[in-house]
């Protein structure tokens, strides 16, 4: 079965990058984006750890 942490990690990494970039170009976007990015990466690392 699919490890739910993979789609969660991917979604928040993509959204985090998008919102952070938008925040930099245009600070709530910046810190919300970074928060999502960190959360997304942690989820992906947890999924990877489980796989190995």
């Amino acid at each position, binding site marked *: *079965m699919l490890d*739910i942490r993979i789609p969660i990690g991917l*979604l928040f990494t993509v*959204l985090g990058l*998008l919102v952070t970039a938008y925040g930099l170009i*245009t600070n709530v976007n910046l810190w919300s984006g970074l928060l999502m990015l960190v959360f997304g990466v942690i989820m992906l690392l947890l999924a990877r750890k489980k796989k190995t």
Partner: protein
Amino acid sequence: MGNSIFHLQWIDYAIMIIYFLFVLGIGWVLKRYMKDANAFLEAGRSMPAWVAGLAFISTNLGALEVMGMTGSGAKYGMLTTHFYWIGAIPAMVFLAIFMMPFYYGSKARSVPEYLKLRFDEKTRGLNAILFAVMTVLASGISMYALALLMEKVLGWDFNLSLWLSAAIVLAYTYLGGLSSAIYNEVLQFFIIVIGLLPIVVLSLHEVGGWSGLKESLAPIVTEKGFAGDTFTTTWKYTGSANGNPMGVEWYGILFGLGFVLSFGYWCTNFLIVQRAMAAESTTAARNTPLIGAIPKMIIPFLIIVPGIVALVLMNKADSGFTIMENGKANYDLTIIKLLEYYLPTGVLGLGITALLASFMSGMAGNVSAFNTVWTYDIYQSYIRPATNDKEADAKHYLKVGRMATVFGVLVSIAAAYLAGLFGNIMDFLQTIFSMINAPLFAVIFLGMFWKRATGHGAFIGLLGGFFVALLHHGLTVPAGATTLVKGGWLGVIHTYPVEMAQSFWTAIFACASAAIIAVGISLSTAQRKTDDELRGLVYSLTPKIKEDHVAWHKRTNTLAIIVLTMMVILSILFW
């Protein structure tokens, strides 16, 4: 488009589109695992406890809950947390420790099926039919509210919003069944938390933190005729109904909400219990409500505290913040107005996505519970029973489960249009159908802990409790009610200060009368089930679960102690 509250930019739409692509993608990936009815309707009983636990709480975190509770925060302050602490946690702990071993261990695939195993066919049939109608009603009302909100907030066409949201829910539940609904509920949980978090931070930042909020509130609350700290405390002013804005005394909160209503909802509502029944083991199933209880206790800080800040903003002349609509305060708009007030383009898209996600998690939860009850408790029981060919049956019921998903969504759409045409009638029907929860808890509780309880006792107790609830609702009204939907449709013998007090007492009367009737009838009818048939279904006949093989920190009792301790600490901090 001109009258809408928000004007979204490309980034907001991009966030929404990316989110929904992931939602549909999960359904698509899970499609390959849906080989039989067990996988589709029960998620193959394979969910880890943390996934089932977050889905357990996310199912309850629908948009009507988010919008309603933020509005209640502005109306009642921290008193609203009673719905999250005393009104949820004891019931979730009870479900985990005492009830999940029977639901899960009996191999019942639904709550109605447990009733069949413990009592008889007629008790199952009554519960299954009422539950099936209630879920499509709730799903339809949720769809209607979503489409109406999108029309008002974003200027989207009502019909487009309705059909688009229905199509997305249908797509991912049709493809991946209960697994897809549960996985997406976990995704929705995180998007709701992260989408609403900026509002909490920014709103508290503006009023100077918790102490600043208390200071700003004092004159506003005093003007309403309550003590200055009423809106930042939970139990302090519940000595009398007039001392708090909820209009309910401590014993009404403790017994009406903390016992009857919450136990009726959390312990017997299949929509909720289904998530725990999909867990991978008995220990995981028992831990599911306890894992869900932890975010449940934290959610008030995410949705109620911003509601309280909204009350301060409403009373600040230069803030420009208002929830007035046609000269009346519309508290359901509180969260929408907070999104508008605080969030710039970008995180605004995230906040709107969080709201959409919460609407859809409510809908998908109802649809996935409906298709299970329809397939197992109605179709398999009364239309096409199982044969000796288990493999062919599993494939056949998978097909029926998928058709039930389509049927459930289509009926929900019809219910949504009916809600638009006859809003009051639909609200009334939902109120009536929800009255079955309290008597159902009384009957299931007796069934689990008293082996003498009989099928006739359960059936008549369930019906009797339901009719007492109807009678109480028909003979009482909340003060200021302008429509029969709120009660008094048989005449008025008592007026409650607020609607909440009426619903608490309706549940108390229904539960008590169901229990008394069920005991009386059981004692006067023969028990047709043998002790062997009741093993695994009744507490006194079932071997106690030993968790010696489970690490101490993963044991149900350990988690239960942690959860209850957290609840007590929070209650003392905000006494």
